[in-house]
């Protein structure tokens, strides 16, 4: 099996791709921090999928007799002002966090990639216009821009996702453009073009796949920032609405009890920090494997 994966002359595209994925995977395993990061992200995904099995209590079930209980054997992270088990809410909150980061990545990365690839491939005035717009978005403060968009769209988790995606795409456009320019004039692109491939086909089939690895690295590194922005919107009451157990919104509710019942606000914060750190570790590891040049510059 491993011989088949590491074969120097793969007989099919599948074998070549699998071999490459295997090499990336083994290189990643040699970096302890990247493994820790991958494990944290894995735990997040598992928590999100199996939340009903993992959480000991309902995330919205109230139990007013047991309100504001400190952490104990029954309630690992204590209970909040409505007697809800904070640990269960944190577990269910993983779903919302995962939903937000995935949706933002799924919306922002393709937009940025296409804008950047088109800009770099065509050059000239197309490049100037697209990069002008990109630079304007890049020079804005991200959080403020997201806040203003949510204010106009109205609070809610979908609008928070849209607002964060609007502020996230320009970075990927810059990356895709830089990558595209380096191989725009190379021979394999000319060869495809001489075969009569349209610009759309060249960009979609031959340019974008080559931008993938640096984009994946960047998306992973950006995850921490996206989580923090989403939590910030939740904290201000503009993201996920109650009774959804969004981590930022949970911190906001715990604000009133911070002086006496510290666990209500602090516990979801630890979850945010842990997950953000996990994505940072994983992103750093991925960068060393997929994009060594960029790593040296840092």
């Amino acid at each position: 099996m491993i011989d088949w994966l590491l074969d120097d002359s793969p007989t099919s595209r599948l074998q070549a791709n699998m071999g490459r994925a295997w090499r990336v995977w083994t290189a990643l395993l040699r970096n302890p921090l990247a493994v820790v990061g991958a494990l944290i992200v894995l735990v997040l995904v598992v928590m999100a999928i199996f939340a009903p099995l993992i959480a000991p209590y309902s995330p919205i079930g109230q139990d007013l007799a047991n309100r504001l209980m400190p952490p104990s054997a029954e309630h690992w992270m204590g209970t909040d002002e409505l007697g809800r088990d904070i640990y269960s809410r944190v577990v269910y909150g993983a779903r919302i966090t995962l939903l937000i980061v995935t949706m933002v990545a799924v919306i922002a990365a393709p937009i940025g990639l296409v804008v950047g690839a088109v800009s770099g491939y065509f050059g000239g005035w197309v490049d100037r216009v697209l990069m002008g717009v990109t630079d304007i978005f890049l020079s804005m403060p991200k959080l403020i821009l997201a806040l203003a968009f949510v204010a106009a769209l109205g609070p809610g988790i979908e609008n928070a996702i849209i607002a964060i995606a609007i502020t996230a795409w320009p970075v990927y456009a810059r990356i895709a453009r830089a990558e595209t320019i380096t191989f725009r004039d190379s021979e394999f692109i000319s060869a495809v073009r001489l075969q009569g491939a349209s610009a759309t086909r060249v960009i979609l089939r031959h340019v974008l796949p080559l931008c993938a690895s640096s984009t994946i690295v960047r998306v992973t590194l950006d995850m921490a920032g996206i989580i923090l922005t989403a939590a910030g919107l939740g904290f201000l009451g503009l993201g996920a609405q109650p009774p959804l157990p969004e981590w930022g919104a949970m911190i906001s509710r715990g604000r009133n009890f911070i002086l006496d019942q510290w666990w209500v606000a602090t516990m979801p914060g630890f979850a945010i920090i842990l997950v953000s750190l996990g994505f940072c570790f994983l992103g750093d590891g991925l960068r060393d494997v997929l994009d060594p040049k960029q790593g040296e510059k840092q």
Partner: protein
Amino acid sequence: MAFEPSTGAAGARMGMLAGRAFEGVASVLRFVVVVAGTFLGLLAITFFIGRVVPIDPVLSVVGDRATQEVYEAARQAMGLDRPLIVQFFAYVGDVLTGDLGMSISTGRPVVDDLARVFPATLEMATIGIIIGVVLGVPMGVVAATHQGSWIDQVIRVLGLLGYSVPAFWLGLVGLAVFYAGLGWVAGPGRVDIFYDGLLDPVTGLYLIDSVIAGEWDIFWNALDHLMLPASILGFFSLAYIARMTRSFMLDQLGQEYVTTARVKGVSERRVIWRHAFYPIRIQLITVIGLSYAALLEGSVMIETVFSWPGIGNYLTTALLTADMNAVLGATLVIGAVFIMINKISDVLYRILDPRARR
């Protein structure tokens, strides 16, 4: 510039100076065009957010409890019957003449509100960046000269935490620990409640106003209130500045001229501060500028936690009451300051670093 044989050294010198002056004018012009373009872009975005995104922009300005007459009047006043492009230029004209509309929650012009709250944010962000620079730069240098030591590890961890700790959470924990728990600092707000309104606003910065008025009690009280939020902001810039200083220093320390200096027998302190640190201070200007701008943005969250009456608090209050004029005004001001700081540090870098001039 074409190279032409000249009659003498003086002539060559004149030609070079003329060329420089021309290049200088051209780069100033280019700078002005870029900045103007970016501002126009910022205006286009706020216009888009205010007029195009909401389903009913009138409702978002007057609020949903407005009567029919108020609604119609606002619709007329906003000129929503005109084509979008005309509306946009009218909007640009309004902003350029300092008209950002009225705030529905305070009932005053947004410009006046912003002028009143901005100094509070400026004061906090400035103390924050001072903390970040004073601690972050030396930490970065030490981390680079003692690679792999404990301080290097500490800076690594701080750098990662700077990316993964929510500012508002750190603010809450800070309040719980240092204010409620240990009693080292004062609580939320800019000054204790009985000092409120005692100062004549000269600059709006309490630390300076209190010194002008000779009210040292208020000065110390304001400083007491400022310490915690500014330190938290400072932590985020420290994490970034230390990391960047470390990597710039490592770059320099690996260069051959540093080895040469060491071989000549220059003392280690002089090698580090005089030889290696000297060239990176220009790169640091850009880093400090960027993090100063980021602090103005970061203060939005911190101000909410500390009930700090600055632009961030104004913005978040406006967000919750859907006071769109105030939201857009605050966005515009923060965006404009953010862009200006970025561009200025860019220009400073170009002026100070001969390599970046062409």
